[in-house]
């Protein structure tokens, strides 16, 4: 069974540029999560989807961050414009539902210069 797929694995951009991350969850997983992981720290939840509905986006900085999950499968997380402080690893995870194990992808390491 294929795991959670994320792309790109690495991204370097200049500040004020836009950037997008893509996530393909495990087939059949209804719940999808985006986490932010700063260097040397634990992940922090940004947004959670149940199918195509964002059910918890309270930690998402909505002035520059946006996310979508079309058709309840793949998801895209966008930052526009990026700031130096956005440099971090962005992790995607999925689960059958909110009560079951979350499977994580390898993450996208973003560097903003």
């Amino acid at each position: 069974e294929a795991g959670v797929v994320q792309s790109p694995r690495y991204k370097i951009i200049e500040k004020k540029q836009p950037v997008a991350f893509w996530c393909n969850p495990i087939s059949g997983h209804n719940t999808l999560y985006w986490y932010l992981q700063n260097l040397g720290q634990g992940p922090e939840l940004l947004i959670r989807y149940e199918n195509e509905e964002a059910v918890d986006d309270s930690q998402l900085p909505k002035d520059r961050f946006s996310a979508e999950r079309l058709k309840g499968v793949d998801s895209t997380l966008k930052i526009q414009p990026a700031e130096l402080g956005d440099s971090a690893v962005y992790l995607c995870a999925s689960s059958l539902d909110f009560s079951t194990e979350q499977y994580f992808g390898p993450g996208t390491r973003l560097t903003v210069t």
Partner: protein
Amino acid sequence: AQTVTQSQPEMSVQEAETVTLSCTYDTSESNYYLFWYKQPPSRQMILVIRQEAYKQQNATENRFSVNFQKAAKSFSLKISDSQLGDTAMYFCAFMKRTSYGKLTFGQGTILTVHP
């Protein structure tokens, strides 16, 4: 709000020996789950073990076991017969039963297993 504290930034152990990683948490909830996740240098986070707060019996998974002390709000991970592949960052995490999947992670402990 829930908080999770891992007081050991780094730990090291010799291969084949036993090591214990500490975790404490703060919550007013009575129904919750606790987890230990492993994040190797490749970055893919993997679930090591899960404990449900209403279960008094400590969870075990092969060489991994926990010491869950609910009253003390403590949840330590014991790794027996440490292997080189256990080298990773370990995160303790908490989830309220009613939070619908929202995990709160600790700061992590870097574990190095030496040959």
